[in-house]
């Protein structure tokens, strides 16, 4: 019961955040977007009147008047005659319904100019790269972190700490550039970018392998930059837990060391690990976006890059929303994980720590 309440609270929280971010975006972008809509409306009105042979006989003045009427009609339809705050709210709700209008320049692979189509096409690719990277990093990070915690001061421990410090301030996308230079340009063992070869292989199995081959280098970069920090965080947390009395109890009970580490200790350490993991993932999203651009990986990161290069505002707004959406729901998912891992939340003692 307490879990349900806790999670309900988190979901409401997430929705509020989404709404507020969108509201900010809408306020910032309002003028820009409305200008665009007005231009569209005017163009459409002109076309309807001037291209229509029905009105060919009309005088220029009549046509102009008709155009103005059409414009007024459309403006009403789009709610442009409403007061400012209503318009902004309208835009926010529109965006919340994934309705971002049409792109100005970019198009989806199928040729659709609808922003949500373009984004939905890119989204799975980003998720593929990002989740695989995260999972690999978590596994490596936790394993190494525990190893380091059990051997404090060893070469492994010191290497991990140093490495974590170094990668803490390393731009992931720059590492990407360097890796491309070395592994693609110099050694030529990995493709320099993209998601599939051109032309793409026909056979599904070959296609999948090809994608995997293209995935490898960005994945390596993601893991390379992130696992140090995660190992270090895990190490610190595990080290803390190791000093707790119950570890001694477990040792006294004759529980094998492996079981102590991967059972008692890791289980206890997992809620704080989840918390620090959340922060780490959130921190790496920005870098991942740019990394996609560098690797020409056709996900939302590269889309961002292209939208900015082309000044395609509707796409930028849509992407902002989608990334906020992903971000907020990633936090939510980790909150769920936290609630499942910490029995104190299960019975509602810890509350929303």
């Amino acid at each position, binding site marked *: 019961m307490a879990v349900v309440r806790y999670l309900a609270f988190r979901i409401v929280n997430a929705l509020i955040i989404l709404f507020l971010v969108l509201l900010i975006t809408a306020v910032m972008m309002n003028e820009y977007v409305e200008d665009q809509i007005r231009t569209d409306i005017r163009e459409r009105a002109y076309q309807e009147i001037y291209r229509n042979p029905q009105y060919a006989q009309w005088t220029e003045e009549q046509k102009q008047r008709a155009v103005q009427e059409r414009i007024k009609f459309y403006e009403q339809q789009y709610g442009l005659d409403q007061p400012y705050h209503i318009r902004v709210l309208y835009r926010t709700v529109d965006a919340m319904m994934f309705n971002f209008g049409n792109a100005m320049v970019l198009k989806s692979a199928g040729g659709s100019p609808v922003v949500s189509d373009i984004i939905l096409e890119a989204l799975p690719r980003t998720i593929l790269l990002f989740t695989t990277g995260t999972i690999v990093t978590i596994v490596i990070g936790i394993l190494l972190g525990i190893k380091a915690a059990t051997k404090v001061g060893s070469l492994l421990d010191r290497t991990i700490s140093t490495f974590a*410090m170094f990668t803490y301030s390393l*731009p992931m996308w720059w590492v990407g550039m360097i890796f491309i*230079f070395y592994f693609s340009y110099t050694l030529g063992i990995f493709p320099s970018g993209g998601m599939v070869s051109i032309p793409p292989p026909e056979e599904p199995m070959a296609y999948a392998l090809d994608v995997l081959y293209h995935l490898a280098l960005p994945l390596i970069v993601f893991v390379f930059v992130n696992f140090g920090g995660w190992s270090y965080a895990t190490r610190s947390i595990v080290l803390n837990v190791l000093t707790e009395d119950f570890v001694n109890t477990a040792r006294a009970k004759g529980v094998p060391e492996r079981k102590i580490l991967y059972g008692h200790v890791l289980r206890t350490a997992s809620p704080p690990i989840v918390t620090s993991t959340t922060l780490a993932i959130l921190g790496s*999203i920005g870098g991942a*976006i740019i990394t996609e*651009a560098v690797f020409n990986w056709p996900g939302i990161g590269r889309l961002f890059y292209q939208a900015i290069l082309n*000044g395609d505002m509707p796409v930028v707004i849509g992407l902002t929303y989608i*990334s906020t959406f992903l971000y907020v729901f990633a936090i939510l998912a980790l909150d769920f994980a936290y609630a499942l891992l910490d029995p104190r939340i299960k019975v509602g003692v810890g509350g929303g720590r």
Partner: protein
Amino acid sequence: MGIKDIVSEFLRFKSGLIGVFLLLIIVGMAVAAPVISDEEAGYRWYDIEWWTEKNIPKGVPPEWVGIIEGREYASTSEFTYRIPSREGYRFTFNISYDMAADVPPSDVILYINVSKAEGAADEEYIVVMNIYRPDGTSLSRVLDLTTAAPLAKITLSTDEKARSTIITFMKKYDPENFEDITSRGLTNVIDVVKILFSEAQEDVLLEKAPPLKGEYKFEITLFRRSTNVTFNEARLVVLGSAYGIFGTDSFGRDIFVGIIWGARIALVLGLVVAIVSVLIGVVYGTVSAYVGGWTDEILQRIQEFAISIPLLPLLLILAYTFKPTIWNLILLLIVFSWPGPVKTIRSMALQIREQLYITAAKAVGASTSRIVLRYILPQILPYTFALVAFAVPGAILTEAGVSFLLGAQGTLEITWGRILSDAERKSAVLTGMWWWVLPPGFMIAISGLAFVLIGTALDRVLNPRLLR
């Protein structure tokens, strides 16, 4: 703990000292930028014209690369021929250039300085250049142009006549590749200067022939149609194939200059963002913890909201809307960074507040301000130094990311991110110009590392025991 104790404790950490050392180097670079480079360079970075006039070879590696590779890179040399003023319409003279490098020069530029009689109309004159190569072959009429400019500047690599002459000359040694290249319409990609200084043999058009060392003779002939025109001087500049400490980008900008000027922005931005946002965080967190109750609850919710906003996308939109100066960017970064340290500060303040000696001070009659000023802040403030140090790399990294994505739409200051952005847009990685990519990223990493090292050491020294 007094300041002396803190310093002596800090000095025990080797990593912290390394951090300080790295930081000093970067600070040194930033401070010395106007001294060790042209001061104008600081605001002329994006003025490509200005850079072109400086006759810096474009897209060449650093000079020390030759030492490592054991090859000699051509250096830039200049030859001036003062044309004796005398009668006649035709002047011919030779400039010889001894090409001894393993990597031939990157370009040849010819300047003709001309003056005209007062009141005279724009009189045209003709420049012709023949080249005699050390292997006995010669190229005639590499240049043949008519112009009326008072200062003629002819760049071999971009001059159409020169390009076609050189390619045609080499065609007979490498006919197959010529066919291939022409059919694919790639003739304009050939580095004609490089092949001019190469052995005339197979694959020369693929730029794969070895360099041809020896004396090159540039025979220059100038024609004038009237005596209103006076030729003063001819200057032949052979641009080297390596330059400076970090080489140059494909616009001919000295990357080292970009790096040291970028250090200023990085430091200022990183420090200002970190200090201001940590200070806001400290005030916010302390108030939240000390006042408690509903205020605390509300402040915490606000902080949670603020920290759940994805930074980069919003930052991009905002940067896009407000044409971002560096100060706008700093402001935006602060707006998004202050929630970071709040949780830490709040929990610290909470823990200190719970200490019995605080209650004891209350029992003695100490006022709230006395408790905050004498008991709570002195415990928190030293630690904020560590927090500031940890916050700097994030700010620098984010700025780099934003500048990288926004490119020319971003700030107009020299930033490392922007240099990388240019590199990416010019495909530096795929054309092997590592010197354009490595130094800026490396500087971002090093400056971040410096602060992390310092922060870690400060953390060990200053983190109050009660946090552990």
